[in-house]
């Protein structure tokens, strides 16, 4: 048994209002540099919709993740030999236009324009070519179902749905899906990187790109089935969500979580058996992957596990944090959080509590007096089709989704009865496999959890790290600190200049990166 600690996140989708605050604060923190304009390490998609980049979920075409071939787990885009043979041209690469062509506006025209009959206009200008362009696609182009009557048909999750689901106004449904890097237990991006520049941190499972070793081979972008590894077209290096490791190491939540208006994010660690991951990711039936992944997690309350974990060097405060972990509770104990697209076989570590709304409407506002016979069949008539949720979170297994929704409904009904002193039919809880205590606990954690309950983040043990100097540059974006013009003050250098390689510099002679 090889015990590893791993950070995970749970998002409670019922609470997401699609405000994009997470995306904005993430962008301000990490991707406000040239070459990263188009990157959204955190983005919020409206589902149904094509997503970002377009049709990222269609991994029959995009070739992200793993598949089982002759009983063996193999990268969908091809193994090591095939990668080296195709290194000169990656035929499965998603081009920047599938995200969008980044643009800015010709603001100067607003000031310099001569007097005219009409107001001057700031025309959009491509940041790739500097030329005027027509905007035909952009980030969140499909926000709040905009144009879904056209784009919705391209949502790969609609493939499994019957024709009955139409995009007609009366039948429309939607939900928000905030996405970050999954920091998978079995990351296919790391496995796709020929240079070994991508790695998983031994201590906390965070997946990072070593900016110094990245050689621009681009296979990670194809390898990631969530399309969460981005290509900086200025520096020619891969970049991705860092799980805000500088904050996490200091016991603070990621910036997307910290600023989440709906307080829907939870961060904690789980202990898992690394020796079990390959086997779990290789199970034949896609629908078994969810259970298989649950099977890799270890019980932090088990004294045997604790003893072994200490022996293997997991700090004791981390074991304690694993016990208090909201991720462990929601995913393993309460089983109401589910992994996103487990069928990609990467064992993702950002899990989701599926959305229930609009629950009241489905029951016609008579929730107080309802019996389980009425409530649970109603789940099938929820606005968001069960099949759709199953396609997102359980590789199409509707049984699991129904069980989760049933629990959420039972918890709500129970709490409503309790708060209003109404009679409550205990059968509702029993049928969902719950007790009063569990319902209460679920309510505490999913509805009113405070900051310290939502984020149980043990600090990293930096005192244990040996030669910090040798790690310099490994973790990613230290060059951001040196970007004088990004930080205000100092000489106003062109930020573009900084990202040129250290040689053949065209703009100034200050010390290049790396020296």
């Amino acid at each position, binding site marked *: 048994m090889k015990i590893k600690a791993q950070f995970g996140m749970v998002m409670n989708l019922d609470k997401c209002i699609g405000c994009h605050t997470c995306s904005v604060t993430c962008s301000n923190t990490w991707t406000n540099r040239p070459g990263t304009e188009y990157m959204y390490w955190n983005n919020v998609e409206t589902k149904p919709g094509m997503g970002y980049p377009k049709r990222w979920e269609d991994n029959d075409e995009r070739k992200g993740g793993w598949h089982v071939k002759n009983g063996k787990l193999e990268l969908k885009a091809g193994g090591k*030999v095939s990668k080296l043979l195709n290194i000169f041209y990656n035929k499965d690469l998603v*081009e920047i236009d599938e995200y969008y062509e980044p643009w800015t506006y010709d603001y100067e025209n607003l000031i310099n324009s001569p007097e005219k009959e009409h107001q001057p206009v700031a025309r959009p200008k491509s940041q790739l070519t500097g030329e005027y362009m027509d905007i035909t696609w952009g980030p969140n182009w499909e926000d709040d179902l905009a144009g879904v009557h056209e784009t919705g048909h391209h949502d790969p999750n609609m493939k499994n749905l019957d024709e009955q689901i139409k995009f007609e106004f009366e039948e429309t449904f939607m939900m928000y899906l905030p996405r970050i890097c999954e920091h998978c237990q079995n990351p296919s991006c790391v496995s796709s990187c*020929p240079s070994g520049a991508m790695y998983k941190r031994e201590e906390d499972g965070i997946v990072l790109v070593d900016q110094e070793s990245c*050689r621009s*081979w681009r296979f990670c972008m194809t390898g990631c089935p969530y399309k969460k590894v981005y290509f900086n077209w200025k520096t020619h290096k891969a970049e991705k969500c860092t799980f805000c490791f500088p904050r996490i190491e200091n016991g603070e939540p990621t910036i997307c979580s910290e600023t989440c208006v709906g307080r829907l994010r939870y961060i904690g660690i789980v202990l898992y058996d690394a020796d079990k991951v390959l086997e779990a990711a290789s199970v034949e039936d896609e629908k078994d992957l969810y259970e298989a992944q649950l099977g890799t997690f270890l019980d932090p309350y088990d004294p045997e596990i604790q003893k072994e974990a200490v022996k293997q060097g997991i700090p004791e405060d981390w074991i304690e944090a694993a016990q208090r972990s909201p991720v462990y509770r929601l995913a393993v104990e309460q089983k109401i959080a589910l992994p996103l697209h487990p069928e990609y076989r990467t064992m993702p570590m950002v899990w989701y509590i599926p959305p229930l709304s609009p629950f009241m409407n489905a029951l016609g506002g008579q929730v107080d007096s309802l019996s389980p016979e009425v409530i649970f069949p109603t789940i099938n008539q929820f606005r968001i089709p069960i099949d759709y949720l199953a396609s997102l979170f359980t590789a199409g297994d509707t049984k699991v989704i129904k069980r989760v929704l049933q629990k959420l409904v039972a918890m709500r009904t129970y709490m409503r009865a309790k708060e209003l002193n109404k009679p409550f039919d205990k059968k509702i809880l029993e049928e969902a496999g719950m007790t009063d205590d569990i319902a209460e606990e679920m309510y505490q954690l999913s509805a009113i959890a405070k900051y310290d309950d939502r984020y149980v983040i043990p600090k990293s043990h930096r005192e244990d790290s040996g030669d910090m100097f040798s790690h310099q540059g*490994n973790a990613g974006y230290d060059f951001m600190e040196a970007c004088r013009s990004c930080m205000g003050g100092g000489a106003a250098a062109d930020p573009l200049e900084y990202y040129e*390689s250290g040689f053949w510099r065209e703009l100034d002679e200050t010390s290049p990166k790396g020296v």
Partner: protein
Amino acid sequence: MTNLDIFLWVILPYVSLTIFILGHIIRYNYDQFGWTAKSSQFLEQKRLRFGSTVFHWGIIFVFLGHVAGVLIPKQWFDAIGIHDDMYHFGAIWFGGIAGIAVVVGGFFLFLRRVSVKRVIKNSSVSDYVALIMLGIVVLVGFTNTAGYTATGGDFDYRVTIGPWMREILTFQPSEAMILAMAGAPIGFQLHVSLAFVLFAIWPFTRLVHVFSLPLKYLRRNYVVYRSNKPVIKNKDTHKKEIN
């Protein structure tokens, strides 16, 4: 032996190779961040496909051809029974095909670089310098094979350029071979001396990615872990791999 001969066939190679080796060492140590293949596929891929694939595969075989023709002594071929006729047949046909691949692929890459707006805007001076220098060396070299050797030219680079190059590499240039170089057809002279100019700028361009061909990947575990802690118990889990 004129001063020009000494410059071209002794000084230039040594200066160039010194810059080539030191340049790579220094850049590798101080500019890991800039050491990339500088792929532009993300910005434009339709026109890259043919050019890049054909060019790169071609140049691999061209490289192997140069090893066979210049670095391996003619006597070795004779010893294993590969005679002049067989060698020349191979050199002209295989070398010719690889050469065509490089010229055609390179031409497509060049066209792409000068006509696709996104690529133009995101090219540095070094990209153009590398491409143009490489293009000239390739064109001159290809002309030698296709226009001279294949049409019955009687200059045998295996008894002139080959030995001279090996003498340079073993630090014992001889007057005889320098004179042999001075007497070589102008095409061959140009190809060799321009190649050395290319080697001198090589470490400062994107061409360094040649040395990053990630063969290590073949022997690596799929998932790479890096540890913060200094104690190395398990070799697999701590290695920092740079190609």
